[in-house]
């Protein structure tokens, strides 16, 4: 009994050390999104490329897609952009939300760096961003064929994130959708 007590500090150290060690590799920005499992919020916005065209959340439905929040003031978005173009080239639709930006700068961006988006909604007030629980840019949502948000990723998408995190989920959703069609 007395011997066992002597080991208590060591055990305590190992437990606490284990927790802290794990904490070193957690991403503090990766917060559980309150919107995962929820439908895409309603919105009614103009598009960046055609400031007379009104788009709503109903224009998004159909198949699995990505919803990408970006802005010209956001450094991560510039790094992410070529990856988005690659993803769009695989045939996965991407919709953009231009978050609290200047219209002309956004239009110029899409001209300069190519446009991977089906359309980009111009969210100048940040209201849609707020409804999506966005707290910065870039952020990307994976939305399924029912219009339900399945994943929210806060941060820059790169090859690694796409291959290991987003693509597997997109493939799963595609399989789910195919099953529904068959049955």
């Amino acid at each position, binding site marked *: 009994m007395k011997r066992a007590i002597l080991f208590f500090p060591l055990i305590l150290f190992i437990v606490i050390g284990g927790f802290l060690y794990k904490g070193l590799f957690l991403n503090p920005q990766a917060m*559980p999104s309150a919107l995962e499992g929820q439908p895409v919020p309603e919105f009614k916005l103009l598009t960046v490329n055609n400031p007379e065209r009104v788009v709503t959340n109903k224009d998004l439905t159909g198949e699995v897609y990505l919803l990408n929040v970006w802005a010209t003031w956001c450094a991560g978005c510039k790094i992410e952009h070529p990856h988005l173009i690659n993803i769009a080239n695989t045939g996965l639709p991407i919709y953009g939300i231009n978050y609290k930006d200047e219209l002309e700068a956004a239009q110029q961006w899409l001209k300069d760096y190519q446009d991977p988006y089906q359309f980009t909604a111009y969210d100048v007030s*940040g209201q849609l961003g707020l409804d999506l*629980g966005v707290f*910065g840019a870039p952020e990307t949502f994976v939305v399924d064929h029912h219009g339900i948000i399945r994943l929210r990723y806060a941060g820059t998408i790169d090859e690694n994130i796409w291959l290991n995190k987003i693509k597997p989920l997109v493939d799963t959703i595609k399989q789910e959708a195919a099953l529904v069609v068959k049955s």
Partner: protein
Amino acid sequence: MNKLFLSVFLLCLSMSFSVLANSVETYEFSKPEYEVRFHELNKILRCPKCQNQNLSDSNSMISQDLRREVRRMLEEGRSDEQIMEYLVMRYGQFVLYKPKVDRVTYFLWYGPIGFAVIGLGILGYVVVRQRRKSKSEVVKESIEAEQQLDDDEQKALDKILGK
């Protein structure tokens, strides 16, 4: 001494200004009550981007937006609970510095009490054991004392030994 007091006083004064200058925008409120609640809410709501600052502390874009939203909802006459609910729907429990008690936050809420109970238990155990030990030491001492010779016995012994 007076100089020291004066410099400390001035230091405190200069710090109080930085506290006053925390939020940049100034909002007008239709009722003074709203303004009080606005500041109260901004203190207990956490900035989702900067994580360790509350809304009134932070000047990030998202905090500015959320302050504007909080003000809008106050002016609409919504209750504090409704406003918090609105933000929790979007940003999760994370935005509350005081998260609600539920399955996920049980440990957070009751963990400290649990640790206090464990700590007191250990303390109690140690104290009781120590008491028992010292009691048995007292007994031992009294037995030893009984075994000691008193003065008369010592004299008798000395006599026998021819001292």
